């Protein structure tokens, strides 16, 4: 029998984030970090993953920054992390049971293995999944070209249904990351940077009021929109499919622990990989100057469902939750594109109707010539937008010496076409097909403007 923990709101939740950085990857007889290099026991890892009866085979490969390598089609990208809090696991609710509503989030330490990621590939649908180029013109567009990848090329047994296939691949990525973290980060750690992140306290707290007539700092909240449109378009909070969830507050540093994981492989350019969630730069930036340049009053997650009724419901509830935090302004980040533009506009207008100012992060689908309308919906309140680029813009990617995965699908990718292969082996492809290129959490520097 378990008892409800003391409400997280009573004590501020603090997490210490230790980062161990590796600068190379290799295979060896035991999984460990040695002299800044992560060594992986292929046999042990493969056996672990193949314990899922649906998985037929797993091929491991390594990709390094600067390599002439294309990784395709990418499912997810995950950073291995280890929780040093016994009662709070990594990927809570996914790899082990966790209910955020009966257990509060405990404070403590988390360790990241930085400089490398686990990347899952393997064709499920063959379209709208994306690629990562480790060098060449495509590399500019995503942080993933500057990091080491352990690529898991996963194949499943014949006759596996799509949703089973997706689930197995998804879990394989988390299991692999967890295995690497436990094997290499457990035990005493001598090196690594340490950062303390203090979460906002409960909503009733009215910020750092400064006496003496000095203007108080602005109160900022964050509305975190999550893709939830169905198979290959889903996101999970503590293992729960967010389309089944009502908008809710989270403790911002929950994301470090993988409380939000990606179940979506479509919309390569602007879907959030698990890595993006784990390292959400909006949450991190807001936390780092919380109490100094502003008061970060809280973070609300919400979904992007496919019915008008759901959209109206979620946006009304999200706006009310945000309003209850009493912010001066809100950052809103979107995931995906198309009908989520409608959710974005509803969220924006309903929050602004509470007298709260919004800034929206969104990419654009303005056509290859840039002449089409960038978003499918609009609202006069959406007067402060940060653009993460036109995803339809075409770039030419030269052939790479090595392909990890299967690049025959490249003509099927959204953003590719049957005509996209050029005679010299290059492909002319939209940014849409590059993982993370127009990410709407604001990781990248690409933007768009009127010519």
């Amino acid at each position: 029998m378990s008892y409800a923990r003391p409400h997280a709101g009573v004590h501020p939740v603090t997490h210490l984030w230790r980062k161990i950085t590796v600068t190379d990857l290799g295979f060896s007889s035991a999984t460990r970090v040695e002299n800044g290099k992560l060594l992986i026991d292929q046999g042990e890892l493969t056996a672990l993953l193949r314990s899922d009866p649906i998985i037929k085979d797993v091929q491991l490969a390594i990709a390094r920054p600067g390599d002439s390598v294309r990784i395709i089609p990418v499912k997810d990208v995950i950073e291995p992390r280890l929780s040093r809090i016994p009662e709070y696991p990594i990927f809570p609710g996914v790899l082990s049971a966790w209910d955020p509503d009966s257990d509060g989030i405990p404070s403590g330490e988390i360790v990241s293995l930085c400089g490398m990621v686990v990347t899952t590939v393997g064709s499920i649908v063959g379209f709208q999944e994306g690629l990562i180029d480790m060098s060449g013109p495509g590399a500019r567009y995503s942080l993933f070209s500057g990091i080491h990848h352990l690529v898991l090329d996963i194949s499943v047994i014949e006759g596996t249904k799509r949703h089973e296939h997706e689930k197995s691949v998804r879990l394989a990525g988390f299991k692999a990351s967890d295995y690497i973290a436990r094997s290499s980060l457990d035990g005493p750690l001598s090196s690594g940077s340490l950062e303390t992140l203090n979460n906002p306290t409960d909503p009733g707290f009215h910020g750092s009021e400064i006496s003496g007539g000095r203007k108080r700092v602005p109160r900022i909240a964050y509305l975190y929109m999550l893709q939830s449109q169905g198979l290959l378009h889903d996101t999970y909070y503590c293992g729960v499919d967010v389309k089944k969830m009502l908008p809710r507050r989270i403790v911002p540093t929950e994301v470090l622990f993988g409380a939000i994981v990606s179940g979506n492989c479509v919309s390569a350019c602007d879907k959030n990989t698990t890595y993006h969630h784990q390292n959400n730069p909006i949450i991190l930036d807001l936390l780092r100057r919380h109490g100094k340049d502003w008061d970060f009053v809280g973070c609300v997650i919400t979904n992007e469902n496919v019915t008008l009724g759901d959209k109206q419901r979620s946006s009304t509830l999200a706006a009310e939750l945000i309003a209850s935090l009493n912010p001066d302004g809100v950052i809103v980040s979107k995931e995906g594109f198309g009908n989520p533009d409608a959710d974005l506009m509803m969220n924006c207008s309903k929050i602004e109707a509470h007298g709260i100012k919004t800034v929206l992060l969104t990419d654009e689908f303005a056509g290859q010539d840039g002449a089409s309308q960038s978003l499918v919906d609009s609202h006069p309140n959406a007067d402060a937008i940060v653009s993460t680029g036109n995803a339809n813009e075409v770039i030419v990617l030269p052939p790479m010496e090595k392909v990890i995965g299967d690049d025959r699908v490249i003509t099927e990718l959204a953003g590719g076409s049957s005509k996209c292969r050029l005679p010299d082996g290059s492909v002319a492809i939209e940014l849409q097909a590059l993982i993370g290129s127009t990410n709407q959490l604001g990781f990248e520097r690409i933007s768009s403007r009127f010519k």
Partner: protein
Amino acid sequence: MSDASRNGKYRIVHYVNQFFGGVGGEEKADCEPFTIQGPQGPGRLLEKLFREGNADVEIVATVVCGDSYFVEHQEDVLRELVPLIRGYHPDLVVAGPAFNAGRYGMACGGICSSLQPLGIPAITAMFKENPGVDHYRKTVLIVETANNVSGMEEAVRKMVRLGIKRLRGEEIGFPKAEGCFEQGIRKNYFHAEPACGRAIAMLLRKINGDPFETEYPIPFFDRVDPQPAIADLKGITIALVTSGGIVPTGNPDHIESSSASKYGKYSLEGLETLDARTHQSAHGGYDNTYANDDPNRVLPIDEMRVLEKELGFKQHPWYYATVGNGTSVDNAQKFAKEIAVELIRDGVQAVILTST
């Protein structure tokens, strides 16, 4: 790039109107196109400033045409001038500057947009209110100038700066940076700062009431408030308007079957019905058979006459027709505005618009 076999200079053809071509003022706006060898009028300043900018150019010809003549005979003029200009093998064509002269601006835009698809770089210049700007900005590089001739030197300087880049084959990534009007097209670029930092900075400014600039101006889908309902149909004048292209047989106004550039106004006086002998469909975007067999299926005058007797409203004796196939939003708006003016003047109180 110019051929080494020529004297090494860049070849420029300059287009000007009757005034800058030395023919005369407005009274000569109907002068037909002709060519002067070498530079004329502002062309001399153009040549001089190019050379000061270390671009060895020669204005090999100045093409002159009256502003009215151009706009009234545009197709014929272009048919004559485009091959003529090509014959000079220009490396660059410069048109104007047209400042705020509307017909001149339209002519300059027309010349440039006809040459570009043939691989001949062409630039022009005009004032922001010149109708040529909105018409041609998406496809032609138009340098922004002052309102009138007092801004000549500055206009020519900017044209030269832009012209030199075009002569060197440089891509113009952001026209605004080169002193041109924005083309209204989205183009990606790498900002110095990641988007999340920009978002927080923008929010702080917005909260503080400081000015900020959105990175994507939301397009305005305007809605018009519904006009009040008609209380009683008796005595009300109702007009029919159609985008289904129903016109008198033979399409006397030559309304295009697609991308219509005009609309027609036709009489219903004494007509109780339409039929295949008297009317047809000019619309190219749907199977015309049914509309041709019985044009009432798109322009329902037969039943309107029945209801006119039954309900007591008055059928307006004129109807308006255009073809709503690929018609640009701009054109459709323009037609409707003009039609509305006439309808109001004629006392029409309600409209039934039929579309396919």
